[in-house]
């Protein structure tokens, strides 16, 4: 069973992930892939406490790439969450054969343009998206299971390779 969804969300584990996606997909494990958080035991514990119904594993990009294949055949389902497209690209370029990412929450920051209500991108994000699309990785925009996923290229044709 294993990988159920790979989510790009700058809030990492939060309400939408735990309640909406957690209730819909019932993951046994949630992988947070983030070099910065992985280096902080306190922040790791905070994320672990945020999802009491799943086992939370906080890994670096290199660690996640190393376990990607093994997790594919593990019993129970798994969600993967990372904070930005740069990390998503780094994970794929490190060897993880991720078929798709769901852009679930990339909030406004100066220099970023609105793509959807909850997704803002700048040129660096678009470059990372383009690199992922060139590798055949599907990119969709969807915040919660109750909404319809939309292709990123439909919402922002400039990311087309």
């Amino acid at each position, binding site marked *: 069973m294993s990988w159920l969804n790979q989510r790009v969300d*700058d*809030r990492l584990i*939060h*309400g939408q992930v*735990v309640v909406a996606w957690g209730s819909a997909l019932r993951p046994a494990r949630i992988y947070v892939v983030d070099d910065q958080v992985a280096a902080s035991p306190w922040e790791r514990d*905070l994320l672990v406490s*945020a999802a009491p119904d799943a086992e939370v594993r906080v890994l670096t990009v290199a660690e996640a790439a190393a376990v990607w294949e093994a997790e594919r055949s593990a019993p129970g389902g798994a969600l993967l969450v990372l*904070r930005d497209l740069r990390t998503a690209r780094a994970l794929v370029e490190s060897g993880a054969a991720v078929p798709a990412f769901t852009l679930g929450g*990339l*909030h406004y920051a100066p220099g970023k343009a609105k793509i959807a209500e909850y997704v803002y991108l700048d040129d660096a994000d678009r470059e990372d998206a383009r690199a992922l699309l060139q590798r055949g990785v599907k990119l969709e925009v969807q915040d919660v299971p109750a909404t319809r996923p939309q292709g990123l290229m439909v919402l922002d044709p400039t990311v087309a390779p």
Partner: protein
Amino acid sequence: MRRIPALLVTHADLGAALLRAAQQIYGPVGDVEFLSNSEFSRTDLENAIRERVSGWTHGGLVLTDFPGGSCQQCGLLAARGNAEILVVTGMNLPGLLDYLHNREQYPVAELAERLMTRARDSVRVQHARPE
């Protein structure tokens, strides 16, 4: 005793609405701010909370709505290293009213425990008695 300040950090405009509701029952309220998590990334929400509590030289309470949510986690991240700033999660109207009535009566840790108990105990299931 010194008045303990509070910051409501919630999803959407729940904090603003809770405060409006509390004011209808309690009257005008000072020293309580609200902040919505809308539009904020994890890092930006943490920074926004830290900015608002930075003037709390004698501590205070960050009141959040949902255990495990971004408001609670970012409240904890922003309060890290300050033992006098506590995060209370699962805040509702009875809890907020109890805070308003008691924020000058208790030290911060005792007040936080009190609010948690009041908010939790106010959730009830009741059946109307048959005639």
